[in-house]
């Protein structure tokens, strides 16, 4: 416990240093927000399992490790081969690359090219600097840290207190971004705390697709604490994807908040393959009638990986539709936590909310804690939820084996099939193909022990029995 306290003290000391350097007021309006955020963190500290929202996720290992921001002001560089490897096959869309949380300009595609008029992407650091100079930053001020509020979320608070870099995506009214915009966060330095911040502003009637990817160049421990805020204007539509392939020793905490105005539409799909501990706190907030949200997730984890999703859909207004589909595949001693909260406030009549959470358990050592949490205060609503967990069924297994597939290959294919339901809804073709390939490889590796090698090694033993 003493270590945890001292870790907290270190973050506070870091903050004090920045305060002395005058870094808090860049830009000026952010100063009070940072101060409020750090006091939230100072009071609460890292959550313990005594708190309901963290009951099944023990943060002690995270709280005890002295992660620090990267200790250089040099702009990050990546080698050409590394940059080439970061790309997804067939994905020739705009890409911003971040290394240890900081924008890597030369590794990114030029932000002015290939974009439609009315679509603007930039690093958050650049945007904030521009804001400090002249007046274009009113939108930044209106949105940054106004959606993912630091109160009640210590990690959003920590991120807000230190917000420095990340990505800003703005799409002007009635503009459709013709291609997805990809944000790649590369972890390169062990022990580093990276706190990227993503702000997406989709104005009235606009459309955009955002892809967040987390890639590890090291397999050590580090800590990513990301906050993504998505402001969806009236009739606007944002499709959001996350593919998280962090190191299996890494901590990954993500806060995602989508604020959906009248007739706006938001979808997100989070694919979690990496991380020692990965927590996603996701909120979809309806601010105007007729909104739609589709929240999906897939996690395929093994060893001692721990994945925690806390999803809240806030039906604050009438006639909104929400869909949740979360599927998990667990092997080894992996552990999954899913908490799906649907709030239907008293005025929110004609709400249509649905939640599905399914787990496939590949070993006896795994643990799943899943909880639907329906808080319904309106009477004319349709709310359904369902959860299921189980092992691979014997009949499909036999069916595949009866066609010549070895048991491990059959199990791998069925596991892949279980996960496909989420993957096949990934709209950008190169991204779906990429996730599909990763999933195929992962399921085959999980269920390796193919008898093919055994048969080849000893071809006659079975036949001569």
């Amino acid at each position, binding site marked *: 416990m003493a270590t945890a306290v001292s870790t907290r003290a270190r973050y506070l000391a870091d903050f004090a240093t920045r305060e002395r350097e005058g870094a808090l007021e860049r830009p000026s309006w952010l100063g009070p927000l940072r101060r409020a955020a750090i006091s939230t963190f100072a009071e609460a500290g890292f959550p313990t399992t005594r708190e309901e929202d963290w009951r099944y996720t023990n943060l002690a290992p995270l709280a005890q490790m002295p992660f620090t921001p990267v200790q250089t002001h040099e702009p990050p560089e990546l080698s050409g081969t590394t940059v080439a490897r970061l790309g997804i096959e067939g994905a020739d869309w705009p890409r911003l690359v971040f290394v240890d949380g900081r924008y890597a300009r030369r590794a990114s595609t030029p932000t002015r090219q290939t974009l439609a008029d009315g679509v603007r992407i930039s690093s958050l650091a650049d945007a904030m600097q521009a804001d400090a100079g002249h007046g274009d930053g009113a939108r930044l001020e209106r949105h940054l840290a106004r959606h993912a509020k630091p109160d009640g979320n210590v990690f959003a608070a920590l991120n807000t207190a230190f917000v420095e870099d990340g990505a800003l995506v703005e799409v002007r009214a009635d503009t459709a971004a013709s291609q997805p915009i990809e944000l790649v966060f590369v972890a390169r330095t062990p022990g580093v705390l990276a706190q990227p911040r993503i702000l997406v502003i989709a104005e009235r009637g606009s459309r955009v697709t955002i892809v967040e990817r987390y890639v590890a160049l090291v397999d050590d421990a580090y800590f990513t604490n990301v906050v993504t805020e998505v402001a969806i204007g009236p009739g606007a539509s944002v499709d959001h994807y996350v593919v998280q392939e962090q190191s299996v020793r890494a901590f990954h905490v993500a806060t995602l908040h989508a604020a959906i105005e009248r007739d706006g539409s938001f979808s997100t799909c989070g694919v979690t393959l990496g991380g020692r501990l990965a927590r996603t706190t996701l909120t979809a907030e309806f601010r105007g009638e007729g909104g739609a949200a589709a929240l999906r997730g897939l996690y395929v984890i093994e060893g001692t990986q721990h994945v925690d999703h806390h999803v809240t859909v806030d039906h604050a207004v009438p006639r909104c539709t929400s869909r949740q589909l979360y599927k998990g595949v667990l092997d080894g001693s992996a552990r999954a936590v899913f908490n799906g909260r649907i709030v239907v406030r008293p005025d929110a009549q004609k709400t249509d909310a649905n939640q599905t959470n399914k787990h496939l358990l590949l070993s006896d050592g795994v643990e799943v804690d899943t909880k639907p949490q329906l808080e319904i205060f309106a009477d004319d609503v349709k709310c359904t939820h369902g959860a299921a967990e189980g092992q691979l069924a014997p009949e499909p297994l036999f*069916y595949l084996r009866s066609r010549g597939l070895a048991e491990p290959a059959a199990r791998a294919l069925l596991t892949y099939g279980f996960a496909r339901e989420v993957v096949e809804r990934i709209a950008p073709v190169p991204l779906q193909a990429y996730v599909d390939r990763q999933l195929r490889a992962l399921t085959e590796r999980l269920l390796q022990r193919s008898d093919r090698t055994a048969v080849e090694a000893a071809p006659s033993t079975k036949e001569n029995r």
Partner: protein
Amino acid sequence: MLEIRSLSAGVAGKAILRNIDLDVRAGEVHAVMGPNGSGKSTLAQVLAGHPAYTVTGGEVRYRGEDLLAMSPERRARAGVFLAFQYPVEIPGVSNATFLKAAVNEVRAERGLEELDAMEFLEVLEQKLKLVEMDRSFLSRPVNEGFSGGEKKRNEILQMAVLEPTLAILDETDSGLDIDALRVVAHGVNRLRRPDKAMILITHYQRILQYLEPDHVHVLFDGRIVRSGSKDLALELERRGYDWIREDLAVAARPA
């Protein structure tokens, strides 16, 4: 090709098959007929190696090998194929992915190289025609949302692709309307070869009008109680299974 000797088997402690003897030679088509609950499907499942069934006695040799000692996948790779009475749905796995995985397993066993995506599609094109299916079947998840007839045709498609030596068709005719039956039977007929054999398991005689069997066996209460030519099937059709039942009762009566 297949020698079944005194085979007894059951499921969950319940005896179903009792002392089955059956010889199937290359080029032959055998029909196994019988009323519901006589053990027809159990025989099919035991031959394919379903782990839920326990063999309690006897032996089965397939091309000289001990079939019962082989895993289901080994049997499949060695050329044994079961067309399921109730084909299983595999959500999320396309028919093409499934078929490609299966055909490459079987080819590897025969010392043939894996088919690449193009070669595989070429092979499939011909086989699809055989069962009058179009290419859209390939991208659909295995059997999911298929009609009864589509499922059965999909079984025959798999059979056509895998080219088994011994095919066991478990009530492939059940639940089919006359047009679907004609398509399925036509497809099966085209797969008959002098070096291959088939066992047709069926309740009704009607599929046998299309697929003339060399031998007909009647399974009753887990035993083969009659064997004969295709005329036996016609007699069953005319007189029903009650005739067998009465016959057996007479035979069992002490003299």
